């Protein structure tokens, strides 16, 4: 089964390109792994999932590139071609001459509707190249105008065109001290609309990834490309082939469906965060050894205290003991405990079958009104991922995005209270009432996660 990726805006296109790079490199590495048969199967599965075999030349990504300005697309396509391992298909991109100028309303109300058909055709063509469609992955930032505005519009259209297909939105949240001043408005507009039509929203925060680059990867001059490589690594570790509970003997054929059914059991809760362990400079990899118990112990604590990396985890934060009342739980949450709704653990590498995931079964980690058995799923693959001998990734539907979301909405609301910048949005037909609806929607989401 295959996944069609839609990359939107500067951020979406730049990260998408890195993602295909990771996937392509990782599955090429797998071919040389032993046992041979397993590596070959992994390679074949990954290829089918993300690439078209081309009669001549390199495989092409099952991707559609969308931006309202040509620069990034031109560069992205050229970078892929330069890899010499894969490429984007000719004519699989859509661009215009002028970006959306960081204005969500311009993207959503003008560019989206105007180019709906052309963009829809491109996606349809990719879908038709798939024997079976596992789902659609859209990638974009929430801060700009194109990724956020056009991306939201495109997601709505995809929902209409493919009512039974899984849609996963990968969103990049902006640095807190912004690069875009209206980023909180754009984020609020994007998230509230996506909440109605997406199946799950997978979030990367630029601040958190930046810290990983600085503290774990030891990069001195961090560029967007460095940040994007980390995001791509984390995404790849989720999306590459793995054995799930339902597919012990072969690789899962339905990665998107299983991801959703493991993590999104209730439409009110669809914000997913990611963390991966270990992550380090590639030059240190050969000198590092990890054990599964060690990795999983750290990962569990990262979950409990909602940390995005193992550096500086707060070991003081504890889960409440089972059977304690809501007041107790609330108290623990105030001390930093992160209550989960559902978690998906993805383990890759040597001796993976020996890894004991019992620590994640603890009912104390989860909100009481869901049966704990369904709350944790585990996927495994015995092949090393992206040159890491062992690695573990946790996709979590928990309170871990509550704080950044609350900040985002709070800052947007403060700005809205003085009506600053609103004229830029009304110019394109987004009214104050529209804003109020979006705020209401997100306050509801915040409240739901708060009361887990």
């Amino acid at each position: 089964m295959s996944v069609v990726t839609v990359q939107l805006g500067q951020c979406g296109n730049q990260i998408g390109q890195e993602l295909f790079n990771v996937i392509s490199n990782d599955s090429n590495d797998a071919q040389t792994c032993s046992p041979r048969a397993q590596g070959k199967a992994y390679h074949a599965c990954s290829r089918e999932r993300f690439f078209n075999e081309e009669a001549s030349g390199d495989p092409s990504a099952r991707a559609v590139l969308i931006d309202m300005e040509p620069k990034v697309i031109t560069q992205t396509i050229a970078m892929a071609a330069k890899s010499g391992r894969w490429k984007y298909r000719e004519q699989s991109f859509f661009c215009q001459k002028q970006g959306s100028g960081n204005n969500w309303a311009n993207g959503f109300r003008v560019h989206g509707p105007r180019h709906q058909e052309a963009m829809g055709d491109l996606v349809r063509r990719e879908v038709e190249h798939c024997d079976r469609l596992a789902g659609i992955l859209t990638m974009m930032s929430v801060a700009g105008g194109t990724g956020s505005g056009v991306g939201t519009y495109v997601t709505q259209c995809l929902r209409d065109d493919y009512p039974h297909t899984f849609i996963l939105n990968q969103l990049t949240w902006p640095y807190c001290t912004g690069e875009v001043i209206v980023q909180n408005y754009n984020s609020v507009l994007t998230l509230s609309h996506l909440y109605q039509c997406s199946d799950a929203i997978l979030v990367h925060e630029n601040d958190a990834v930046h810290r990983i680059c600085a503290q774990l990867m030891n990069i001195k001059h961090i560029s967007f490309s460095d940040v994007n490589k980390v995001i791509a690594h984390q995404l790849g570790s989720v999306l590459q082939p793995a054995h799930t509970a339902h597919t012990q003997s072969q690789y899962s054929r339905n990665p998107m469906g299983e991801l959703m059914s493991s993590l999104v059991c209730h439409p009110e809760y669809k914000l997913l965060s990611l963390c991966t362990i270990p992550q380090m400079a590639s030059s240190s990899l050969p000198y590092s050894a990890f054990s599964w118990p060690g990795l999983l112990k750290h990962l569990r604590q990262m979950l409990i205290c909602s940390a995005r990396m193992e550096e500086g985890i707060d070991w003081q934060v504890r889960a409440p003991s089972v059977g304690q009342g809501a007041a107790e739980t609330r108290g623990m949450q105030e001390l930093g405990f992160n209550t989960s709704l559902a978690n998906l653990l993805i383990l890759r590498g040597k001796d993976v079958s020996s890894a004991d995931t019992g620590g994640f079964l603890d009912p104390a980690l989860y909100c009481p009104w869901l049966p704990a058995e369904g709350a944790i799923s585990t996927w495994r693959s015995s092949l090393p991922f992206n040159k890491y001998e062992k690695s573990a990734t946790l996709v979590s539907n928990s309170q871990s995005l509550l704080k950044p979301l609350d900040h985002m909405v709070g800052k947007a609301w403060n700005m809205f209270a003085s009506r600053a910048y609103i004229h830029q949005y009304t110019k394109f037909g987004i009214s104050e009432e529209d804003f109020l609806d979006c705020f209401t929607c997100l306050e509801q989401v915040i409240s739901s996660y708060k009361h887990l």
Partner: protein
Amino acid sequence: MTQSIVVQVGQCGNQVGCRFWDLALREHAHVNKKGIYDEALSSFFRNVDTRRSDGEGCDIAGGKIRSLKARAVLVDMEEGVVNEILQGPLGDVFDSTQLITDVSGSGNNWATGHRVYGSAYRERIVERVRRAAEHCDCLQCFFLIHSMGGGTGSGLGSRVLTLLEDEFPEVCRMVTAVYPSAEDDVITSPYNSVLAMHELTEHADCVLPVENQSLVDIVNKIRHMAHSGKPGCVIRKDSTLISGQGGVTGPAKPFDAMNNIVANLLLNLTSSARFEGSLNMDLNEITMNLVPFPRLHYLVSSLTPLYTLADVNIPTRRLDQMFTDAFSKEHQLIRADPKHSLYLACALMVRGNVQVSDLRRNIERLKPSLHFVSWNQEGWKTGLCSVPPVGHLHSLLALANNTCVKPTFIELRERFMKLYRKKAHLHHYLHVEGMEQGCFSEALSSLSSLIEEYSQLDATKNLLLPDASRLSIAT
């Protein structure tokens, strides 16, 4: 890629514009060694086959550079300046269909420029601009350059602004306005400036005010440093922001050094729209991010490096110095002190080999020393363009929507009042048809209410305002 058109009006507008075209050519020649007409060039230049001699030639889409024509319309009601440009080395960049001149000038009278010439030349100007627009496949922005103190630039220039608004409502209008110094040789410059500001406040998308006094100060300081010969501040000939070396123009004229600074402002402002980078900042993002309320669209700009001119391999400290400098008084293009006033929003447009981590580090470092309005505490917009200016490793243009413009406006109002109370020179204006005293009082009250709006914001500077109470949701 999008295109922009420069409309340069009056002596100052044309002289500044001319420096812009010269330095833009130099910059593109430096980046584009192969002589291919590329997307970057197309944003401000047409590539024209002049052998088809029907006056303006025909556009060639790609391929070798044939003959570059500036996407510009030159307007002046005297002939001198424009003729000089045409006879100089830049003459080839313009052709006759881009020019509009008259012989007698506006006599430093806003009313003559705005009313008399504005009405007489309206159709012709629209026609020229429309023709320039037809050569663009996606026209994004008009850059209007003029002085505030004279008659033509100030009067006719601000008339052109409304005309662009009427004819091309979708296209962004950015005005680079040169404000007179206190010792300006034009006695009526306060009248002209206040009358023009009324138009700019109502009709521009954003205005980049530049004060001649600041330009003079900067130029003097650079000259001083060049002659002091202190080690470590060697001014490299090819890299100085004020020198036009390497461009096509010949010997320097009086205003050239000053105008080069303004030209560099425009180059850096548009670099991210012309070249690639890991965080693009398109022209339409400028107003979107920096203009929270339509009238408050005056952006104070500062350029660095201006004084210290680095050689290769700048250590981090020097790079950080560049960021620090952008907030100092000495680097502002108007006489203003943004650090002690209130920011509504701030953009950092960086060129060269600079990464996000450099931006983040410097924003974190500088933030505590700056005041931002309560609802925009994180009001930073950043752009990274990978192509540095000629002769530099990197550069920074900071654009601030900051209440520090207020003193400039107040001072202007005082100079205006000094004349207006005595009704000095008023009759020259009131003679012009359609010009009434009401125009003066309206312009004055427009300026006063602008000052008042900045004052009200300024008053919140040291207040700790509580967060707006959030929407409550029934649970």
